[in-house]
């Protein structure tokens, strides 16, 4: 009896050690990049904390909630952008957004092998709403420039806030998105939809439903993201390494026309469904209700098989 308890608690501890979700942004970086290879840009202390937040009596953070820098992943030189979800919900303010824009523009000059983006954000930081919105637009334009310069943008969504709002849009401008089951990707948060349209439209307390609509498994099965992995640092690292090697498309007319076709097709086929179970069933998945219990590997096998 004691032995199995110890084993359970050791396993739980081991899981937390390997969990991306549980880590701070800095720890995510440290556990993924090659040892000691991370060189932070605009280290804490090099710029003041946000005066915009200070005017609202809110304590700022030295990095304004996003850590940027250069690193190596399995010897490939990459740029890292990692949002700290625990600071203001990872939301984008003036300085936070400018750091991201700066890294993307820098990538155009120095041409790293890839830009690796750990998105963990509710979107625009309301306290700096206008600056946040415009900066997200600047991030969108910069991401497209980086892609058209042939530099992959590999995004990982697996943190506490997921990727919502303007960061949900930016995530979908990446060349390659890796999600864990814990991750969520959407535009409006379920609570917002419930507030505006009522609980019938979206019961935000129904966690299983929230994940069936916005979670990693559904995004993967519906083709909204490329990769689904466990909440495991090693799996995520490997997925990033694999993603970096993939050739990328220029965002030209042919590419966008193809995307347009795909969107139209999915819309024609599935629009109106409010739960992914019906879609999974329609895709020929035999036990759609069991998807939530399956591992990432099993879900991948279903999609590929």
């Amino acid at each position: 009896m004691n032995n199995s308890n110890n084993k359970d608690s050791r396993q739980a501890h081991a899981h937390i050690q390997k969990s991306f979700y549980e880590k701070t942004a800095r720890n995510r970086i440290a556990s993924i990049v090659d040892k000691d290879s991370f060189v932070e840009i605009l280290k804490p202390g090099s710029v003041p904390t946000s005066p915009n937040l200070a005017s609202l009596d809110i304590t700022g953070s030295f990095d304004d909630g996003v850590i940027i820098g250069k690193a190596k992943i399995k010897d490939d030189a990459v740029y890292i952008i990692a949002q700290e979800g625990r600071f203001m919900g990872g939301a984008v303010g003036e300085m936070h957004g400018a750091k991201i824009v700066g890294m993307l523009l820098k990538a155009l000059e120095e041409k790293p092998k890839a830009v690796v983006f750990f998105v963990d954000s509710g979107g625009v930081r309301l306290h700096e709403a206008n600056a946040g919105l415009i900066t997200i637009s600047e991030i969108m334009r910069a991401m497209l420039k980086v892609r058209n310069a042939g530099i992959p943008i590999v995004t990982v969504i697996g943190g506490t806030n997921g990727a919502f709002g303007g960061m949900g849009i930016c995530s979908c401008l990446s060349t390659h998105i890796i999600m864990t089951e814990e991750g969520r990707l959407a535009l409006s948060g379920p609570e917002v939809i419930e507030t505006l349209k009522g609980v019938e439209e979206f019961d935000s307390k129904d966690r299983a439903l929230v994940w069936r609509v916005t979670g990693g498994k559904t995004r993967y099965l519906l083709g909204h993201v490329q990769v689904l992995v466990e909440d495991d640092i090693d799996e995520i690292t490997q997925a990033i390494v694999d993603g970096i090697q993939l050739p990328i498309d220029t965002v030209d007319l042919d590419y966008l026309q193809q995307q347009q076709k795909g969107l139209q097709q999915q819309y024609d086929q599935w629009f109106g469904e409010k739960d992914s179970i019906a879609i999974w069933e329609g895709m020929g998945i035999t036990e759609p209700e069991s998807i939530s219990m399956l591992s990432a590997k099993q879900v991948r096998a279903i999609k590929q098989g």
Partner: protein
Amino acid sequence: MQTQTILAELFPNELEYQIDNWVIRGSAETKAGKVEIIGTVDSAAINQAIAITLADAVLDVIAQGKKTPIVFIVDTQGQDSSRADELLCLNRTFAHLAACVDLLRRSEHPNLAIILGEAVSGGFLSYGLMANQIFALQSSQVKVMDLNAMSRVTKIPLDKLQSLSKTSAIFAPGVENFYKMGAVDEIWVNLDEHLVENAIESQRTHIQDFLTDNRRQVAKERDGRLLCNEIVDAVLSA
């Protein structure tokens, strides 16, 4: 001012358009040649259908290969609040629409957005904010969220938000704030047929310049955003 009236003042020559499901699609003749008109009207709540339709219209114009200028009409209350739209990843459709507008820029189509009514949050992000230039009527309402809702969500007292918004353009609704932030190029007070054609002709004289996003420099000149330029420069020189 009604959409109809506004459009007639901006496009007095051979204006023709259709409005279907909050989407406007049309064209007009100007001194600068034919312009295509694409956009939203009546405070559209942008959903999958609208975003897909707008993107389709943009790609059609590009495919014609004539570098025809596009005028984007913007009147949106933001993204629609709908589980069905979210299930099919509305943010992804928005990203696609934004990429289509961006392709206009790279394909040297002069393009501009005109905010006639509302321009809100995600709806504005999806296409209006991607245009080469953004103009707004003085009466337009540009915002992320109104102060009441902002106060509820942030738990900052409304009176604090109201008083701070008198001296800062950083968060409060208002077309003047977005002008200061560098998002709105000009606020149009009196409408006439020259506004659009002048903008297009001017764009044509230096179309390559629009490949560079200069909004943060404009924001600095207008004292709207004071920090972002230094941050970007510091990152670039690191």
